[in-house]
């Protein structure tokens, strides 16, 4: 038994630390700084615990919880990206008077939910993890409760997400009804035979998951929530839940639904194409950077889903590589937003960036690298992400998906170029305050250097992704 619990050690540690931190927060006044630093330490220790037992592969609790390289990789990705998102946004949180000690604790809770999500091998545990994550995210979206837009985005997110969770739960119950099991492996076995009911269940579950990763046509909440929520929350939304959502989506396709490949493949291809096209076209008219990044993230999820749509391991790997590079790019992009501060106010209009290359060459060049990488121009990291995905897609002879996908990269290049044009070609308008946020600068630096030097050893991430599917 003790040995078994070892498998669950990261989750146990995380739970205990969250509640301890909550207690400390309640009893000590003005404890935001303390709790904030404590959460960073908790995250670091959790990373260490996971690394300590990285390659072990075990299932416990009647095979409902599995710990393996796959879930460990995603947990570490979630933790590292949360660490960067949290710390680079600290100055922003304090400036926007969001510095309540609950903030980091709710983030940790959502991480806990994602842990159970990516580790789940059972639809009940999966749903519990998903809900823990979603509930935390509802609160986070409206954390700036005196701000009308933030509250609005919280409500919007809550209503739509609750609906999608309902659909998902309905799908789960259908799946149980038609296969007689909640366990992923048993469901997979059961779906060997023809099972029309399970296809319905799959569609409902897919809808729920597509909502969580904000893929078209379930993307409607994304731009509003991204724009309405405080930037620190938006950056969290843009990065971490996407990783978890994609992880569980791939797991669903890989294990329980592996035998109804043809049925879900068509749906994913449609979702992927729709996301790529909408992400490219709808972003063109945007004037708010956060809103633009929302559409850009929809597009990027489309590319990642194109990898999933292949239905083979190499495709899943390419999607994982894609999402990892996406995380690096988005952390960099949002960290740049934390530096756009003028008289204590954070700017988020594209026009505010006008001509910053003259006064702030370093921010400008960081934007340049990140935006060209988002556009997928070689030799930056974003190119290799797209390269892997389209290599996998073409391997499966899905020519239409590949060609349309590649053409949308040209369309999306247009709006990234528009921002670069504003930064580099236009006249200088605003001089921002000298950047003080050291951690944001550090994450920009790390992000840019990773993207710039990715071409030196482009198979690094791929090698990791390859090792995830050996179980």
């Amino acid at each position, binding site marked *: 038994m003790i040995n078994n619990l070892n498998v669950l050690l990261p989750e146990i540690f995380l739970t205990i630390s969250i509640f301890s931190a909550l207690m400390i927060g309640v009893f000590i006044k003005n404890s935001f700084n303390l709790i904030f630093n404590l959460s960073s330490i908790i995250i670091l220790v959790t990373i260490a615990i996971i690394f300590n037992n990285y390659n072990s592969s075990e299932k416990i609790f009647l095979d409902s919880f599995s710990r393996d390289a796959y879930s460990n990789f995603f947990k570490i990705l979630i933790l590292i990206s949360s660490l960067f998102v949290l710390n680079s946004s600290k100055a922003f949180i304090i400036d926007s008077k969001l510095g309540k000690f609950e903030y980091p604790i709710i983030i940790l809770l959502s991480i806990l939910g994602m842990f159970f999500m990516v580790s789940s091998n059972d639809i009940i545990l999966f749903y519990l993890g998903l809900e823990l994550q979603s509930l935390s995210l509802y609160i986070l979206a409206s954390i700036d409760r005196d701000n009308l837009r933030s509250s609005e985005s919280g409500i919007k997110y809550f209503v739509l997400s609750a609906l999608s969770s309902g659909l998902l739960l309905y799908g789960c119950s259908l799946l149980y009804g038609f296969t007689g099991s909640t366990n992923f492996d048993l469901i997979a076995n059961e779906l060997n035979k023809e099972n029309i009911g399970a296809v319905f269940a799959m569609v409902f579950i897919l809808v729920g998951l597509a909502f969580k990763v904000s893929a078209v046509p379930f993307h409607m909440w994304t731009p509003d929530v991204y724009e309405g929520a405080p930037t620190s929350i938006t950056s969290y939304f843009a990065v971490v839940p996407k990783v978890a959502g994609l992880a569980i989506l791939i797991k669903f396709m890989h294990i329980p639904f592996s035998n109804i490949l043809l049925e879900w493949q068509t749906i994913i291809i449609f979702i992927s194409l729709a996301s790529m096209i909408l992400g490219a076209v709808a972003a063109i008219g945007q004037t708010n950077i956060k809103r633009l990044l929302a559409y850009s993230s929809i597009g990027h999820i489309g590319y990642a889903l194109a990898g999933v749509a292949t239905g083979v391991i190499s495709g899943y790997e390419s999607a994982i590589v894609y999402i990892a590079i996406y995380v690096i790019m988005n952390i960099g992009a949002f960290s740049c937003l934390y530096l756009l501060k003028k008289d204590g106010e954070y700017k988020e209009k594209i026009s505010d960036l006008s001509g910053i290359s003259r006064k702030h060459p370093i921010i400008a060049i960081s934007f340049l690298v990140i935006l060209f990488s988002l556009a997928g121009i070689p030799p930056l990291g974003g190119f290799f992400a797209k*390269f892997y995905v389209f290599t996998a897609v073409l391997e499966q002879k899905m020519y239409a998906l590949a060609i349309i996908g590649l053409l949308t990269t040209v369309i999306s290049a247009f709006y990234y170029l528009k921002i670069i044009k504003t930064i580099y070609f236009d006249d200088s308008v605003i001089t921002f305050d000298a950047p003080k946020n050291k951690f944001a600068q550090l994450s920009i630096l790390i992000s840019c250097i990773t993207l710039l030097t990715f071409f030196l050893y482009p198979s690094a991430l791929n090698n990791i992704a390859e090792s995830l599917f050996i179980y």
Partner: protein
Amino acid sequence: MNFPILTTLIFLPLISSIFIFLSKGQKNDNSAIYISLFSSLATFILSLFVWFSLDLSSSDFQFLEEKSWINDFIKFKLGVDGISILFIVLTTFITPICIISCVNSVKTRIKEFLIAILILETFMLGVFCSLDLVVFYLFFEAGLIPMFLIIGVWGGPKRVYSAFKFFLFTLLGSVLMLAAIIFIYWLTGTTDITQIYEIKIPKEYQNILWLAFFSSFAVKTPMWPVHTWLPDAHVEAPTAGSVILAAILLKMAGYGFLRFSLPMFPLASEYFTPLIFTLSIIAIIYTSLVALMQEDMKKLIAYSSVAHMGYVTLGIFTFTKQGIEGSIFQMISHGLISAALFLCVGVVYDRLHSRMISTYGGLVNYLPKYSFLFIIFALAGLGLPGTSGFLGEFLVLTGAFQKNYLIAMIATFGVVLGAAYMLWLSKRVIFGNTNNSEIKILKDVNKLETLMLVPLGLLVIYFGFYPVPLIDTVNFSVDNLINNYEIAIKSKGLN
């Protein structure tokens, strides 16, 4: 050869650009100029060393370098042969000249400008050195970033439109090539072009793949009707940008045809020859006529570039030795001549800030040295015997006559048109009456301008009289190219 000389060659400018980026002292811009000039000259000398130590009696790729790169299947493979070395040397030769031209013409943010030029040089050299499709694509596309910034940041009034047009046109063509490259990878299991040459791509796929590559190269060449980005880009780009664009970036496409389209898809190349011939002829005649009507000197030279590149594509697809050697020669000579012409426009633009032909007139009375140089390049541009421009066109037309009389006749007519617009340009700018009083107080070319124009002039005349060094260099590689092509055509893809 264990020392990775090509890697050094490619990344030397990049490394020096990092030095410039990190160097302090915004006010003292001279150090940046010296560093970049020094490193680009070092690159030039290194490339000359590669040229002279290349074994020209062999058509094999030399100075091979191979490193496992993506997933152990795709290798970072570099190498040069007789064809690519010429483009490498052209690149390394033009870059220092561009850097010298910056001193006069770039007024703001010269440090960033030099960084962009050096990074661009790295990417251009990478294109010509790569022996792997993915590596080639990487460098080919990466060049868009610095060029986009060069046009957009330092360009003229309509720079934003031109930069966007340049970037999106090229990107649109290139993504199809990327799809084709990945497709070839799954078809043959490799992207190493020396292996693909031997594997031979099945007949049924050749046409579609050829078209995908063509979509990229046609935009880059540029061929009619996708040439419209070029005049815009040229007009708005700063002088050094126009020079690099005309002298080197356009040559990537011609090089691409020679390196990829012809050897990898010989059957498709034969199949599409009429298409290429038609487009080339339209480019030669139509854009020459358009060039006649231009009021703007840079636009005129830009259109003449399209016409000259028409000869290049025409020559390549004759599949004759004269034709292909002529195209290569034409590309090198056009690289020198168009670079020089853009520099000449830049010289007077720096003084009067106008590119309009009507602003000028009678320059010969006030700027004799400048007029002398300008006339040399204008005559070379129209293909006067004794300049390199003549030999390129002559060889291409010789090749074309062996294939198709009608096409060759029409193309020859283009030479006349070329003479017309170039002579008319010279007449209006250099000779004629001086209506503009500002011209009378203009200074003649200074030392720096002489330094950048005279070497170009000497080379244009030297190669006009003695093309042997260039022809000898490409001789065996072209023979090999044509042999392989003919074998492939005879076997009709049955292997």
